[in-house]
């Protein structure tokens, strides 16, 4: 059995103090390497909070979170930043591509803060674009690309640096059904290649494509299904 990439134990997150809002309570979740997990739930259910914690963008208030076996729940802000740079690739609903950089430069941005090798960054970025089928669009500015193409570039950026975990926040939220379908088959292919994939979505069709669905309601994991 593959090692757990993500391991949440009794994780809770409380915002504010007057009155405190419990966005997450007692969440236990383990995700194996190579799994494709969809996190679904109505808005306000806490799935964004869960995503932020999984992405090391936020600390859990209680509980422990291990990523690749490293307990990150008590790491400092700077250390969390380093974990993000090395272990996590992000894909956002609004793509977050820099409008003034070409597709290739946007992908290369992923290794900017990672330390690591400086040589061959261009080649690796090209390979990542190849992986999402966007190599021929490498010199295009994002404004010249369709939504689906922009999201593919964003995925290529997230893949660069071989993260342990690819976190996607509503990746199909701004896409039409044709682009959504094509993105799903890309996710499918990536999952087959052994990438650990977590997709937060409210789209049941997207969730249905995933290997495993985690349903979250009122800050708790309600039900898990295959």
């Amino acid at each position, binding site marked *: 059995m593959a090692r757990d990439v993500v391991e949440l134990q009794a994780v809770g997150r409380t915002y504010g103090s007057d009155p405190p809002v419990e966005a997450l309570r007692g969440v236990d979740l383990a995700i194996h390497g190579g799994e494709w997990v969809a996190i679904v739930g109505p808005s306000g259910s806490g799935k964004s909070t869960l995503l932020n914690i999984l992405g090391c963008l936020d600390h859990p208030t209680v509980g422990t979170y291990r990523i690749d076996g490293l307990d990150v729940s008590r790491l400092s802000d700077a250390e969390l930043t380093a974990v993000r740079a*090395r272990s996590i690739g992000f894909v956002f609903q609004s793509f977050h591509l820099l409008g003034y*950089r070409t597709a290739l430069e946007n992908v290369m941005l992923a290794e*900017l*803060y990672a*330390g690591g090798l400086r040589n061959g960054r261009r080649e690796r970025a090209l390979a990542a674009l190849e992986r999402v089928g966007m190599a021929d669009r490498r010199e295009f500015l994002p404004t010249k690309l369709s939504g689906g193409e922009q999201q593919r570039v964003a995925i290529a950026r997230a893949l660069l640096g071989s993260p342990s975990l690819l976190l996607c926040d509503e990746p199909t939220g701004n896409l039409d059904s044709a682009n959504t379908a094509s993105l799903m088959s890309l996710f499918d292919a990536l999952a087959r290649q052994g990438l650990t994939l977590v997709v937060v979505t409210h789209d049941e069709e997207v969730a249905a494509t995933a290997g495993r669905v985690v349903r979250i309601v009122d800050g708790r994991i309600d039900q898990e299904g295959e």
Partner: protein
Amino acid sequence: MSPEPPPPPRLPLRELVREAGAGLLARPARVGLTVLGTVIGVGALVATLGLSKTAGNQIVGRFSEVAATDVVITPVPGAIGGDEARTAIPWDAEARLRRLNGVAEAGTLSDVDVRGELVRSVPINDPLGQTDVQLPVKAASPGLWRAVRARLAAGRFPDAGHSERADRIVVLGANAARRLGIRNVEQQPAIFIGDRLYQVAGLVAKVQRQASLLGSVTVPEGTARRDFGLVAPASVQVETDIGAVEVVARQAPRALHPANPALLRVAAPPDPETLRAGVENDLNALFLLLGGVSLLVGALGIANVTLVSVLERVGEIGLRRALGAARRHIAAQFLVESAVMGLLGGIVGASLGTLVVVGVSASRTWTPVLDPWMPLAAPLAGALVGLLSGTYPSLRAAAVEPVEALRAGTQ
């Protein structure tokens, strides 16, 4: 067994500058307008400093030619000693001073008291021509003409022999000659002072010192002693070598009156360096203030635009944080962007300022003078302005929380 946290992310300076540069290049028009204030500020400062230095040098340059080598010695009026003071300058002053190091030329000059006698040209029958005029009469030693850098229009200057023999000859200044109706010396004109006839030896066209000579009738010193009872030279005009003014000014009174040099007063020009500094200070104060104000306005402009840019690029900040940028990387990027804007403004401003200095100098045929450090220091000053004005916006950018930034920024 728990793995170690990964090392903190690093961002080499080269990469940082490249990121900041790309950020700026994405908005060239905005950068251009933002930088304008700094351009004007730095340009005004460079132009002001350059022009005042150029003008200062120009003034000193003119000043050095004549005035910086000018020393005049006169007896102290009303000094204790009465007659002794009036006769403190000896007849051989010229010879005594020429023995001093640093004295190029020297000559004595005195006003002659002609007791109200008029000067007349030889009467001719011209009812309209005025021939009787009241002209000042002066007495000069032979060396004086060289010491005042006199230029002849016609004739010659009297020499030592004329003075010793007390020859009755005169030199007319250009204005005096015009009033007397004398234009040349070829027909050996003569004039009367009172009842005595004097031959006109020379006509002076120009002098660079003692301009009153141009309106005067000047006789040799020996002639003035015999005809008008001149008791002693009234002043000594000295031209020194360049840079020798102070030495000559100190030594001349002792050379002229070793027994009591305090009886003599020396008029020497101020130190040229002090004069130049004075000129520069007067010019500088106002324009430096103007330059400083426009630089301040430029700084506020950069601060304002950088702050707006931070708010606009919240999404980009969130993305960079998600990609592993530490807060300091974000702050550094915006700092470098504003510093580069300031640097650009400084470079353009320094160039424009230098052009202004060169242009103004060319139109006035001055020699442009600019401190060599100026073209280097001005862009640095611009960069410093940019850095300072970028501080607050950068801190704001660094404080942005990635979670909120990613949610807010939909570009």
